């Protein structure tokens, strides 16, 4: 599992340029599914056929947050904008990596007041270029945080657990799942960080009976954290609601039942800010009963996100149990 997570988190794949992470995922699942296709937005859709059950869409987004170069100045420094929820206070001194392997350092202009967080207009990226002409990065190129995975006991630290950890869970599930009665559409979506865009078109195309998104959620277990009743290591979270959706109560109940029958620890998630692909899936066509399994994650949308491996493994178990049942909502 850790090897799988390492490969997924360390692979380049920002929102809007998911080609490389899509290829990796394709390699990982292609021998274990019945059909594989890429749709018009770039979503990777794998079908694992069941035996006359329901059509289930399982979604994890393969894109990660990043920065896009909007200008290369005369001296070869890059100006940039955020692709998704990137915040300036996480940036100065950090490294970003582009698709061609070039690494850049994020620098900051002279500050008027050092105790105020500078905005994007004060930041730039230095790739060591001597001028515009020799700069190996061009306008429109997208960079991602440059960080390897670190394993410390049960805790893992990496960039892009949001949502490569969801991708890892779905890959593992495809490997392990036997005798599932349902047609499983495993969708690795694109552009979630830009507004759930991949989920909108893939859910329309699939028209599933049930949707489940697998993504990360915040925790409230760090010093002076905003209050939230989710902690690292206490089990996968079953979403009740977030900023843009209320989980289908019957799906939520079926997920809780699966956890309890299997003796898997779980937490209930009420997230005030943020959402997942489930919000888009739920409102597709006539409406789709939709739920979410969330992996508790600290420091989301920073270069160093942290999850607990036990929560990840328990999420795989929970989904395996849930999907083996004929009854996907109660």
């Amino acid at each position, binding site marked *: 599992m850790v090897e799988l997570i390492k490969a997924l988190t360390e692979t380049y794949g920002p*929102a*809007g*340029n998911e*080609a490389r992470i899509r*290829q990796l995922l394709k390699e990982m699942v292609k021998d274990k599914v019945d059909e594989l296709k*890429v*749709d*018009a*937005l*770039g*979503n990777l859709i794998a079908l694992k056929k069941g035996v006359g059950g329901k059509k289930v869409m399982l979604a994890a987004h393969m894109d990660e947050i990043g920065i*896009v*170069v*909007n*200008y290369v*100045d*005369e*001296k070869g420094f890059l*100006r940039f*904008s*955020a*692709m998704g929820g990137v915040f300036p206070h996480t940036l100065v001194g950090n490294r970003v990596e582009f698709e061609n392997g070039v690494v850049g350092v994020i620098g900051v202009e002279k500050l008027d007041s050092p105790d105020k967080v500078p905005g994007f*207009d004060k930041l730039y990226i230095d790739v060591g270029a001597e001028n515009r002409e020799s700069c190996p990065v061009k*306008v*429109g190129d997208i960079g991602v945080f440059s960080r390897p995975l670190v394993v410390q006991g049960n805790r893992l630290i990496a960039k892009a657990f949001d949502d490569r950890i969801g991708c890892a869970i779905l890959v593992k599930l495809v490997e392990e799942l036997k005798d599932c009665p349902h047609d499983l559409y495993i969708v690795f979506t694109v*552009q979630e960080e*830009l507004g759930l*865009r991949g989920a*909108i*078109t*893939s859910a*329309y*195309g699939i028209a599933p009976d049930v949707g489940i998104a697998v993504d990360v959620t915040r925790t409230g277990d760090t010093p002076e954290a905003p209050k939230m009743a989710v902690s690292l290591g206490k089990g996968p979270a079953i979403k009740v609601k977030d900023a843009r959706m209320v989980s289908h109560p019957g799906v939520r109940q079926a997920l809780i039942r699966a956890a309890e029958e299997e003796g898997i620890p779980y937490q209930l998630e009420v997230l005030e800010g943020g959402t997942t692909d489930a919000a888009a899936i739920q409102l597709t066509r006539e409406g789709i009963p939709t739920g979410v399994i969330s992996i508790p994650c600290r420091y989301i949308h920073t270069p160093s996100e942290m999850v607990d491996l036990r929560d990840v493994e328990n999420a795989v178990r929970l989904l395996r149990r849930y999907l083996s049942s004929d009854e996907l909502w109660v």
Partner: protein
Amino acid sequence: MLLKELSEARGVSGNEEKVREIIREHIKPYVNEISVDSMGNLIALKKGDGSLPIKVMLAAHMDEIGLMITHIDEKGYLYFRPVGGIDERILPGKRVLVGDKAIPGVIGLKPIHLLKEEERTQIVPAERLAIDIGAGDKGSAEKVVNIGDYATFDVAFQELGSRRVKGKAFDDRAGCAVLAELVKEQYPFDLYAVFTVQEEVGLRGAKVAAYAIEPDVAFSIEGTVADDLPKEKDVSPTTRLGHGPAITLMDRSFVAFHPLVRLLVEAAEAEGIPYQFKQPLVGGTDSGAIHLTKKGVPSATVAVPCRYIHSPVSILSLDDFENTIRLMKAALKRLRPEHLKIE
């Protein structure tokens, strides 16, 4: 010149009829079918010869930003709200035309003699401004203006300097004029030229038009921001006037389909057409609605750079305008099924 006629036509979001009629008359000889849908989108179909059995949608929006009259006071002043993205700083002192009868008016302002020190640096919010149409009282104003009437900026189209023109509403009448040229060509595929409504208030026309057409690929043609005046820092000009059509890589509303961006660049280079990339993540276009339609539509946006858009008057380069037509023709000529797929 169609661009002049379209620039001077009045059509704020939700009231595009006059623009629609000009375009309809202009393109009628060149297309097979013309329809208007329930939102007011003008949809023209030019059938292909069947050798490339796909549907290509080209979209340009007919609507412009403007004002809507919300209240007439006892003295006959017209109060209004902006329709679309209007910068409140530029409103005082502007000439406008109100309603279908095009009643001339002026957005009033306090003369500088009477301004207090602090008022000189303050922006007067739009809801405190009023249009003066010279009516003496409410009754005489109501004879010529109704609540809900639209007001447009009163600006004449004019040639400026060398190969540049000024006028209102180049966003997106420039795109409409480009599209009206493109329908004159014959293509191997079915071309749906869609002149959309209500783009400025949320890409509304494009959304339903794309749903009905179900295109295999779509291009939006726009008039976009050129911010190429001298700056204190060496930062992006968004686009530059005279440097060619601007190809969008990504904006706030969508990420351009990579194979289509490659097609546009290859077409420009093969035919020696200048082009530039628009600064990423600025603005949004009809492509934002189109690409998320049904199972998803490969989409791209090409734009004519315009200075001062969303103000009463903008400036564009006729070279950029003509090169946008050339670029789109060159790209459509080279469009193949492989440009609609990603692996």
